[in-house]
């Protein structure tokens, strides 16, 4: 619902890092979005193109790594997927502990550094 303000956060981080590493052009941005982070990946794509226009990230490849909701049972250790109809080796419902699914962070960015003059070193 608030993907534009999320994207503002992404760009703050990206531009901050670009400055730190003297990047003059951003070519790739990868962010990690958990299943229950409350963020809609499709809406993020749209928000990205809106923010990128006219910036050093215009034309950059924007990718989203989705992380599913997973947990485990604290008693028997069995890994669990999702939240509905959970069953493990224990009798009765698992002692659920959430492991992944709430992530929301900028993972990596790639860009070009003007001083070195040539590209393609990846």
């Amino acid at each position: 619902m608030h993907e534009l303000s999320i994207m503002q956060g992404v760009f703050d981080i990206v531009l901050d890092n670009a400055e730190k590493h003297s990047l003059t052009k951003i070519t790739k941005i990868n962010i990690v979005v958990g299943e229950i982070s409350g963020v809609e990946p499709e809406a993020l794509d749209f928000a990205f193109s809106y923010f990128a226009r006219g910036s050093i990230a215009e034309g950059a490849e924007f990718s989203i790594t989705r992380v599913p909701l997973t947990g485990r049972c604290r008693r028997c250790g069995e890994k669990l997927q999702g939240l509905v109809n959970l069953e493990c080796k224990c009798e009765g419902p698992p002692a659920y502990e959430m492991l992944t699914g709430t992530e929301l962070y900028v993972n990596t960015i790639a860009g070009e550094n003007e001083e070195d003059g040539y590209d393609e070193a990846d």
Partner: protein
Amino acid sequence: MTKQIEVVSDILQANDQLSLELKLLFDSKGIFVINFMGSPGAGKTSILEKLVQTIKSEVKMAVIEGDLYTSKDAQRIEAQGIPVTQINTCGGCHLDSSMIQQALTALALDDLDLLIIENVGNLVCPSSYDLGEDIKMVALSVTEGDDKPIKYPAMFQRAQLVILNKIDLLEYTNFSLDHALGDIKTINPALEVFNLSCRTGEGIIELAQYISSQIAAKRTRPQTTER
């Protein structure tokens, strides 16, 4: 040359940082702060009205009202005779720490034991934005259905207290307490649950006592910032 940078930076870090600053401010003043969330129509403002009536004689409290456009909720709280300040998000789906920081300028913090922030009615986004609070409190009314905890797990996972409101209507709905509580226990085993009805008054005293005990606990707890 192309450079790859491992950034690994939380997208909400700006809010998290400001939230931490607010938390330190509230701690230094000994104010217990509640971030109150829930769907539109869950009864957040009605619960607040009842709560204010019950504890305002013993507790110095103020309310920050988050609302999309109107001041209807703030007027209802103001009628209870306590300080209230309004934040209009103008369509924004949640409150964030910078809005709280601004709203605080209208409140006399040195004279407060309890601050309740009523968030925008929404079970999704508000759970991602910390506001410097001690606890997140969620109102869930039985008319919304017992599937809400499992459909909005982030909200219930990050909360410390859930109020099952409109409990007087339980027999007229197909809301299953077993289902709802079972799911809540799965998502967040430590979540405190209060059954409550603003119409009959059931559960208001218990909620008020719980909050009063939390205020007292915070006041007696030594604050790191004062050491």
